[in-house]
Structure formats: structure tokens, C-alpha cells
């Protein structure tokens, strides 16, 4: 290290070593922007730029808007959009869900509440169905892990864009609503 980078005379040897290891702080100089010299007077009065900006606003004023009035107007989504859930039914119209809790286990948002009960005795080959199956759509992050986890293909995602309601209670979809979704 050269002496000009450590201007102060070291008092002891250890102080010198410390100074060598950590370089001396750079002098803080006030940066003065000298752009005014480069700008022409046209630029300096700002008026052309102002007008240019206003022209953009004026042009957009007559274009078709990109926004829409959600939720009264619904966005167009693709067929594969992960929207609201649906509980599926088999050929006989019985719900496929066996209340295995795999979706609730996989759910990172903990939005699925299941309570199981025994299936009606006349449902051949089925032991368990959900007595309660609720999804809290406010908690749901629409990741689709529940669909992936389901061993019975009993839950799937529709491309229905999440609905908007007035109360929190309405966002909790129960079994019947999910079956009809």
C-alpha cells in the first residue's frame, strides 16, 4: 500500500497493519450534475416534453381500454385456467370423494376442512364419504396441489374465475356448492 492512501502517520505497528488491511475511506465529494450545460433551451423550457406526454394521454383516451370492470365483467381465461374447485361425481351421480384428507394434507394454505363419515350402506364398495367438505376460497391460493394429491380424481379445478362476495362466510364453499360447481 502506498503512503498517500493512508495519509495519517501510524502511531504503532499494529495500527499500520490494520490500516493496510482496511483501505482508507474514499473522500466524499459532492457530485455536481453539469447537465444544464448539455441541454438546449428547447429542452430546458420542458414544454415539448410536456406536450409529448399529453399526446400519449390523448391517444389512449380514444383507444379501447385494457382494464375492465371486475367483478361485474369477467376476464376471459384459457380452458386450463386454475379457477374454483369442483367435486366430481361418478357415472351413478355419487360423489367420488372418499374423505381421505389427501387434499387437506397437501394444501399449503390449509383452506380445506374435511370431516368424514361412513358411506350409506347401499353404496357398494364405498366405506367413507365426507360429511363436511369446505374450501375457504379466501385462503385458497389456487395452486392445484389438491387436484394433484387426490387419488380418486374427486376434486378438479374449473376455469371459473374466483367469485367475489360481500361477506366472508359466502367465500366458504361447502360440499353441495362444490359438487354443483
Amino acid at each position, binding site marked *: 500500500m502506498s503512503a498517500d492512501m493512508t495519509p495519517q502517520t501510524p502511531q504503532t505497528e499494529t495500527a499500520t497493519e490494520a490500516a493496510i488491511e482496511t483501505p482508507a475511506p474514499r473522500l466524499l465529494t459532492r457530485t455536481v450534475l453539469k447537465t444544464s450545460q448539455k441541454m438546449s433551451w428547447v429542452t430546458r423550457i420542458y414544454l415539448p416534453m410536456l406536450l409529448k406526454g399529453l399526446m400519449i394521454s390523448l391517444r389512449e383516451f380514444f383507444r379501447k381500454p385494457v382494464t375492465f370492470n371486475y367483478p361485474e365483467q369477467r376476464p376471459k381465461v384459457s380452458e386450463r385456467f386454475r379457477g374454483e374447485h369442483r367435486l366430481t361425481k361418478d357415472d351413478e351421480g355419487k360423489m367420488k370423494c372418499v374423505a381421505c384428507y389427501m387434499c387437506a*394434507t397437501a394444501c399449503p394454505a390449509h383452506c380445506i376442512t374435511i370431516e368424514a363419515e361412513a358411506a350409506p350402506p347401499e353404496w357398494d364398495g364405498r*366405506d*367413507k364419504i365426507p360429511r363436511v367438505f369446505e374450501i375457504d376460497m379466501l385462503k385458497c391460493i389456487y395452486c392445484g396441489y389438491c387436484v394433484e394429491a387426490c*387419488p*380418486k380424481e374427486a376434486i378438479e379445478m374449473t376455469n371459473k374465475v374466483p367469485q367475489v362476495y360481500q361477506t366472508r362466510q359466502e367465500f366458504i364453499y361447502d360440499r353441495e356448492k362444490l359438487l354443483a360447481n
Partner: protein
Amino acid sequence: MSEIKQVNLKIDGRDVTVPADWTVIRAAHANDIDIPHYCYHKDLSIAGNCRICMVNVKGAPRPVVGCATPVAEGMEVSTMAPDAVEARKGVMEFLLINHPLDCPECDQAGECKLQDYSVDHGRDHGRFTEEKVRKSKATLGPHVKYWGSRCILCTRCVRFTDEVSGTGELGVIYRGDRSEIATFPGRALDNPLSMNTVDICPVGALVSSDFLFQSRVWHLHSNPSVCADCSVGCNTRVDLDAKDQIKRIVPRRNDAVNKEWMCDSGRLSFGYAYSDRLQKPKVHGKDATWREARRAALELLSGTNGSSVVVLVSAWNTNEAMATVKDFVSAEVAGARIVGYGNPTQQDQTFPGFTIRGDKNPNRDGLKSVLGIADADASLKALAAETAPIGTLLVVHNVPGFAMTAEFKAVLDRSENVVLLDFADGELLRYGNVAVALPTLTSFEKAGTFVNHDGLAQEFAPVMEPVTHGVPESDLFASLKQDARAATVSGVKA
């Protein structure tokens, strides 16, 4: 045991020394070497029918079953030899041929040996394309249901009813791939130990009716505890759900107490922790604050002359509670008489492999060792026989499902005021002259020690948060003592 010779053998390259009458699987398990098993159970006879415990023994022409092969001097066992691994893989495939693979609907999923060993030893996919045999579903008894298709016919349950409960209700009916477990005609699996068959069933064939579809086992968390249902003091594991609600109680192995068994009554005795609880302190039937209630209790206890106070301590209290009662009485109501009581003793229920004690109190021995009450029933009887009125009766109760005896009522009737410490809002509280009721906790919510019929002191910790405003007796008496001292200092002691 000393006359049984020890033999030296090698399992997976490790030298082990075990008694000569052991089998390979027991020697391996005792040395923390895992050999998979379904039909083998340490406390049951050896059946050797599941064939999953295949191991390679040096010199043997083919893999042998570890559960039925006795150890021998110089034997060399390999659990991971290629032929043993291949044999286990084959056994797993055969066991799964007729298995319905209904894990989503099965309560055993998550603690199922078929799942575990399928991952560890099985194939990653099935090759069976033919139609599976479907077997019956049945309700075997009041607490046990049977799913035939899931059964692997290990016969652990059959051996349990033969050897441990000695009731022999179960047998195997039909032959070949149609074999099923069933009760004998006209009989039901209704012995007091029936739910142990659910525990020892390695698959989901026998399931508990009481836990059926209640929860998936991976959503439960477990805490160790000690059963308070009788004086055996079975070591238990209490399984609770995410809301801290007890879902089931299962035995925890302790060869000195209960091996791996437990009675049905003990398993199902957790309802009292949730129903009819005394939520808040009460003074003359009205809800009060702890401060008011403690003051009222102190007035009744120390206001009268110590000789007119009688303290009734039940055999359901922990050693710690009894010790604090004793401490409090000697400090604040010197001269008060301490009397013990408990649930009336019934007949012991003895089975070939287990005894359910008739003494339905977890800590009768504690009364003896802590409070010096040799015979609790006799002490209550003696008190009931007297006629002198009792000023204040302090009852440290905590007995769930207590049936009040005539003697107990006689003592209550003779008491002017009763200070009750109990977790329940029950018959005793409503009986009449209870002036102050202070809520305590059940053994699920507090720590303590019970001394079982054998004189074995077993400590337990709380398994869940208190569901009421109750406090443990030790805290309660400490606060009472503090209040009494504060009252003495400020000079308002009556």
C-alpha cells in the same frame, strides 16, 4: 433364566449374544436390527405364516423365516442377502394380490405395516391383472370392525384371544384365498380386552369402531401418559388432533406393567375430560372469581376450630396433590382429620395374559405412602359411623363417574359446609351443602405421580392444555396458603 445357555451368533456382521431359546427375529430386534414381520409378536406364540421375515442363514439351502428359526452357536444371519431380499419382495407381492389398495378409505393408512414394507421391500407396481377376491365386512363386537379384503391372515388377533384374553372368540374360516377371520357362531368379540386386536392388527383389517373415520393418523400428535382407570396404571399414548381434542388412547409398551396391552374401558375413558366440567370457581352455587372463592374457602376452613374440620382425599389424587393437602392441613388447619376414600373395589378380572384390577382407583397406594391411610375404605367407614357434626368438610375429589355410597352421603349430611375440589360439575356438586367449589384438572391436564397396585410409582405429564379455568391442586393449595398468610399479616384473620 440362569440355566438357559447363551449363544453367540452373527447378524448382518454384528456379533450378538442371546439366550439359546430365542429365535433369530427376537435376537435381531433385541440388538436393534430390523427384520420385517407381520405375524410375529413378542407376547404371542409363533405362527410363522406371513413369511415376510425371510433371512439368509449361512449354510441353509434357501432363505428361512426369522421368527421360527432358533438361534444356534456360530450361526451367521444376513437380513440383506440377495436371496432374502428377493424372497421378501415375492412375499410382499403375494400379500398385495388380493389387497384392495383402499388406503384412502382405510383408518390404518399412515401406521400400516403393509404400506411400510411395501415401500421398503416391495415392488413399485403390481403385476396382478386378474380379478381380486372380495371378502366380507363384519362387525365383530361392540368396539371392533373387520374388513376382510384387507386382512393378510397373520392370525395375531386369533392368537390374542386364545392366549392373552383366553376368550377364544376368533377363528379362521374357509380355506385358501377365501380364508377370513370370524367369530364363532353366536359369539361376539366382546371381551374387555377386545380392542387390543385392533392395535396388533398390522394392517387395516381390524379397526376400532370408536376411532372409525375420526381422523387420519398423520394429523394426530401423541403424548405419553398413564391410564387412571384402575390400579394397574397402564402406560398409554394419548393421540390428539390439531384442536387438542383426545381422539384415542392406545397402550405404550412397558413390560413391568402392561406389556403392550390395555383394557377397552381404559381406552375409552377420556370423555369425562370434555363433558360436565366445572368451569369456574363457585361460592354457594354462583360463579365467583378465584380470589373470592379462595377467601370463602379459607374462612370456612380456618374460621372454625381445626378439630371440626375433616379432609376427605380420594384415591384419584396424585402423590403431589396429597402431599400439598397434607402440607396445607398441617400449616393452616392443624388438628384436622384426613380420611381417604375411593371408588368401591370390584372383582379383579383375570385373563391368561392380563389382569384388570378391581380397584378402580389409580392411586390407593399413594394414600398409604403419602397420607399414611392404610385402608381408605375403612377410614371412611369409621368416619361415617360417628355422629358428631363436622364443621367444614374439605373434599379433594377428582373421581370421574363416582357413585356416591351411603357412607359418603352420611358424611356429607353431617357436615355444615363442604369445600369441594373437583374437575366435574357433577352429582357431588349438586348434592346440597357444597359452599365452595374450586375447579381442578383431570389427569390429562396436569402432571403427577400415581402408585400402582404393585407399588410402582409412575410419573406422567399433561397431555393437553386445560379446558377449564381449573388449576392443579399443588397450585391451588399454594395460593390458599399464601392468602392465609396475607390475611394473618393484615390482621383480618377471623
